[in-house]
């Protein structure tokens, strides 16, 4: 494989955030609220902890083999066949999420802003941009992600104005039907946040590997904060019942912003889109990139670049093909997506980690580089 450049742990964190964030704030608050009702915030907490667990596991596994990606060492750890299969499942997960994201993006754009435009247009454009970014490489991807990250806080500041509408009563009574609904509601956001397991692919390119674990956990925590802002904001101001009925609660919430002192700023949902497009694009590009990188390694290619455009076209075709309408998409998000994501990020990662630990395998020339470096650091 070609040298893809080096990124810092901070940039890896930005990368992980952009993998998760965009969809987490689109459908997910509504679905979580539908399942967990007024206990949605508890669901978010459960999701946080489960995701932290999964990501911690993934990061630990990645640190065992700091100079390779999971695709490369899985065949050594689990035997050629099962290793290749595990590698393929990661690659599949990333591409699957990628075309799923494309479709989600197309659906929001056509529902909310451009009702007459066919959604293939949006899918094509965003895929083209994402392919451009993947072509440009990991470093550029991380730089753009960071640049986008600069604008996001400004956008969330606007949610301050929703604070006055939040009614604490909407969160009562706590745990009316036991913890069950909260756990059910935590599945989806938990699975989405567990997508930070992309660190398994990124690890070889991180320059300060020791900080990769805290960075991954920080990424999960950061998206959790954003997610809970939207979740608490929409449940608090619409009520759990109403939030559960909405397709895009964050969007609806944004549209309800009204600032009496600044009537000019009243209808800014088109600006929401601007931030939104960037977020979805980054999510797509990061997933796309992780998938391409993994595919290149899986096939043992020198460069994955020639495959980018055919793959992009394939993804577009798949995204259009796989769902018939937006309701199917949402049901799919509720019922299928979390299990697919978790079965890869949690189950396969877990198995690989356990096998690696049992067989006592560590990777790379700087064997156990992570741990030793930290020990040396403590001594110094």
């Amino acid at each position, binding site marked *: 494989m070609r040298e893809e450049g080096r990124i810092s742990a901070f940039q890896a964190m930005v990368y992980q955030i952009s993998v998760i964030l965009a969809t987490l704030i689109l459908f997910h608050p509504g679905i979580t609220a539908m399942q967990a009702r007024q206990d949605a915030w508890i669901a978010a907490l459960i999701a946080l902890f489960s995701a932290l667990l999964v990501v911690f596991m993934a990061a630990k596994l990645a640190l065992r083999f700091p100079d390779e990606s999971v695709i490369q060492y899985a065949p050594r750890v689990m035997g050629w066949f099962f290793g290749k299969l595990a590698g393929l499942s990661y690659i599949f997960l990333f591409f699957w999420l990628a075309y799923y994201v494309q479709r989600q993006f197309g659906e929001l754009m056509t529902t909310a802003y451009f009702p007459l435009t066919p959604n293939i247009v949006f899918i094509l454009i965003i895929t083209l941009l994402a392919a451009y970014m993947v072509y440009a490489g990991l470093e550029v991807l991380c730089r753009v992600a960071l640049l986008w990250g600069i604008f996001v806080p400004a956008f969330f500041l606007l949610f301050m104005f929703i604070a006055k509408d939040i009614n604490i009563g909407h969160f009562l009574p706590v745990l009316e039907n036991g913890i069950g609904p909260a756990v059910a509601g935590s599945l989806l956001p938990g699975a989405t946040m567990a997508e930070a397991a992309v660190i398994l692919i990124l690890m070889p390119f991180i320059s300060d590997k020791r900080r990769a674990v805290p960075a991954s956990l920080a990424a999960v925590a950061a998206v959790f904060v954003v997610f809970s802002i939207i979740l608490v904001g929409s449940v608090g101001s619409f009520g759990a019942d109403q939030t559960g*009925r909405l397709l895009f609660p964050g969007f609806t919430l944004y549209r309800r912003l009204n600032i009496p002192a600044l009537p000019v700023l009243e209808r800014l949902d088109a600006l929401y889109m601007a931030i939104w497009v960037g977020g979805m694009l980054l999510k797509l590009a990061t997933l796309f990139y992780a998938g391409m990188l993994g595919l290149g390694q899986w096939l043992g290619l020198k460069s994955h670049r020639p495959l980018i455009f055919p793959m992009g076209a394939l993804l577009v075709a798949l995204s259009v093909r796989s769902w018939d309408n937006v309701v199917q998409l949402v049901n799919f998000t509720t019922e299928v997506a979390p299990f697919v994501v978790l079965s890869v990020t949690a189950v396969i990662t877990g198995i690989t980690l356990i096998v690696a630990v049992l067989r006592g395998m560590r990777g790379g020339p700087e064997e156990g580089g992570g741990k030793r470096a930290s020990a040396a650091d403590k001594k110094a």
Partner: protein
Amino acid sequence: MRWAAALVLLAFMLMTAGCWDLQQVEEQAYITGIGVDRTPEGEFKLLFQVVNPNTIAGGGVLGAITPGASIPAKSFRNYVTAGRTLYEAERAMDLLIPLALHTGHNREVVFSEAVARQGLLDVMSFFNRRVEMRKLMYVLVTQADIEEIFDLPNPIIAIPSIRLEGIIRQQHWTSFFPVVRLGDFLNWMGAEGRETHCAVVSVKPTEARTLRPYAGPGFTAAEPLLDVEVAGAALFRKDKLVGFLNQKETRGLLWVLNKVRGGPLLIRCPESDKFTSVSILRAHARVKPEISADGRLRVTIRIREEADLEETQCKLDVGEAGAIAALEALQAKTITAEVMSAVRRAQECRSDAFGFGEAFHRRYPREWRLMKENWSEDFFPAVEVEVEVDAKIRRVGLRKKPLTLAPKMLD
């Protein structure tokens, strides 16, 4: 090479992308008010108020029906159509309007009593589903004709829907009607243990004397004979209108909902039938539900309120000890009366606009499961309400002693 590729692909994209949603700004009819009524045949009657931008921005255009006439053109047009669904009615309007309908700037939707009594569930889907429809628009109910509401002339703000919005924006001076936005309305409609409500708009004759118009220099048009008035609230059960609250009762409701931001409180002087007015500064209410041991439902409403003394006809020396306290006690009594009247009225209508059910749900989730089926019918009317008011007067204006006439002048 890569550049060329990117360029070619981009051109390719632009070619495939058309301008499906393109709509020039001047080719749209901006709708500022929507009215919904029923026709005798049982169809929905839809009224869209469309603004004529030329008359607003260009300093006024002459020519009402025949261009060139010396009467200023109307700054709006009302289109009325009918249909089995609202969408059908809306599209029927396209046969009349040469522009694309744009509902993104709609200010309020007014339902006629007939529609509201029959149930708003059927029409709300139209407003709820569409992206363009802002959840920030106001919801109103009227007993008058919607055509009349949306067509009363007035020189101050010429477009009736904008005028209506202006009146609603001034609500904090009185708190005599609720400000209900579509989003709130829908939330309450779907909420468990709470019924929805909204403001009432009506038409009333002008009290002011109208000068007889005369010809000649300084010719003025006659003043309009009718005015729109927003006052009171409409109570709903599920989605059906079941009753009205008058102005004072409405404020009673708003006290409980924590929505009173200001307004006059009229207090009768203790010794005479003269009155004192205070203006409400801020208020805060807490609703505390209780199920007593013998199974009775009881709600305690604690209201903390602050006010300024604005005007008094009593011989009241606020500098005297106890004078303010006495006034505060009277004020508390007034507020209690307002709240109680509202509760009584709501219980009569079996419409829990106060959200007492929600309060019970939060505090007693287990008991709530038994109650929620028959809450409005059986339990809500039986709720005993107790109001505790802690009213304060903070400022008294620029005077301490009352304004008195000198004794010699009395002779």
